[in-house]
């Protein structure tokens, strides 16, 4: 009897969730918009910081380079709640950046996601650029290619791999919950994003909204991965 009710409940939730999406529920789409804005901003910032850092680590020999590479690789697996905690401590009133008043704002969530995915972008960029440089080095030396032209050429020729890296970073940030709930506070209409809403609404028993957001999040992650796959396929076909 209970099992039948549970099954009916699941069917009801899924139907309600689809209806919620189909009806263009304003609350639901505001959450989706904020999620996308925060994740996109974090991905752009991670690209701006992580890609040059990765290229630098790949091409320049300097004391401490190997330590940097080890740290970048290790930080690819940073626990989100620890990142959230550190950013919280930095931005809290008593913290070094407390005067900026950023805690519990979307900006704080962007900062946390950026900290989380920058090592991923930097470490993967380093690997891609280093591998390509090993391949190109002798030809570039023979052609007497200057340092700037060298970096430009490597970044350009690695462009499809770099796009894939960014999409991976985007996917990681979009699915993240631990850090943003700590620094964003999950404030309704202000810092509530898809992942934090799913966690909250599930605990409240409002499964229709949770399932609706879950469907959108999964669709988003699948789309991003399909895009990454398509980029690679296209590059193999057209740019080899």
């Amino acid at each position, binding site marked *: 009897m209970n099992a039948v009710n549970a099954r009916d409940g699941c069917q009801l939730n899924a139907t309600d969730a689809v209806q919620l999406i189909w009806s263009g529920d304003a609350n639901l789409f505001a959450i989706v918009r904020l999620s996308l804005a925060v994740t996109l901003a974090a991905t752009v910032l991670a690209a701006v910081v992580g890609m040059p850092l990765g290229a630098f680590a790949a091409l320049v020999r300097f004391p401490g380079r190997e330590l940097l590479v080890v740290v970048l690789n290790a930080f690819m697996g940073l626990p989100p709640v620890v990142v959230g905690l550190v950013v919280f401590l930095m931005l809290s009133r008593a913290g070094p950046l407390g005067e900026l008043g950023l805690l519990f704002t979307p900006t704080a969530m962007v900062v946390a996601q950026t900290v989380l995915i920058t090592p991923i972008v930097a470490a993967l960029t380093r690997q891609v650029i280093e591998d390509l440089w090993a391949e190109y080095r002798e*030809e570039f030396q023979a052609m007497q290619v200057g340092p700037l032209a060298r970096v430009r050429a490597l970044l350009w020729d690695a462009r499809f791999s770099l796009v894939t890296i960014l999409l991976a970073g985007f996917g990681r940030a979009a699915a993240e919950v631990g850090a943003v709930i700590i620094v964003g506070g999950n404030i309704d209409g202000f810092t509530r994003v898809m992942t934090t809403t799913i966690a909250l609404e599930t605990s409240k028993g409002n499964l229709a909204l949770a399932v609706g957001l879950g469907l959108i999040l999964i669709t988003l992650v699948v789309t991003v991965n399909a895009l990454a796959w398509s980029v690679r396929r296209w590059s193999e076909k057209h*740019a080899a």
Partner: protein
Amino acid sequence: MRDTTSDLPISLDTVTVRCGAVSILHDVTLEIAGGPPTVLLGPNGSGKSTLIKLGMRLISPSAGHITFGGRSSPGPTRSAIVFQKPIMLRRTAAANIAFALSAAGREPDAATISHLLSQVGLAALADRPARRLSGGEQQRLALARALARAPEVLFLDEPTASLDPAATKGVEDIIARTACEGVKIVMATHDLGQAKRLAGDVVFLAGGRVVERGASPQFFMSPSTDAARRFLAGDLVL
């Protein structure tokens, strides 16, 4: 502005190259001047590729010294190289040429790119990704990329080693034409037929030493050393 100083003659004075405890070239003294192609002939491991890389200053001697047009610094400014397995940039054939032109300080305009591709018979494949070209086409594109530097000296490191006879002929035709246009060709090969077809003079290497040098007909008709005679006879020379 293009550099107009000459890289010729290339003079090696008692040059030795070591890699760890292993000596790859020993006390090589050699002068390469302008004129018909110089072919570096010898078995695998005789030091041909090392000599080519020294000529491009891609490596430095462990002992002895090299001068280019009488100067030791800077290194060669008007030389180019085609490797045995050239690396194609991940872009079209035309974009590969454009990159080489830019690296050489030349304007990568469409007319120059088209002219260079035509020279190597690849005009119809300008828009094809370079890595999707066949082995022979890639080697010809590498030649065009080298010619984009408008070189005075063109080093070729076994440029047809992995090509079939038809592709080899295509590459050899370009080499012969380039030599006729006044570019000094310095080519490493262990292919006797190719050396006979292209060489003006031959430098025969074995065991990291220059064993013999002479004009091509003289070398092939009457080699003066036992090692060269055995190599020409098809014996194993180590």
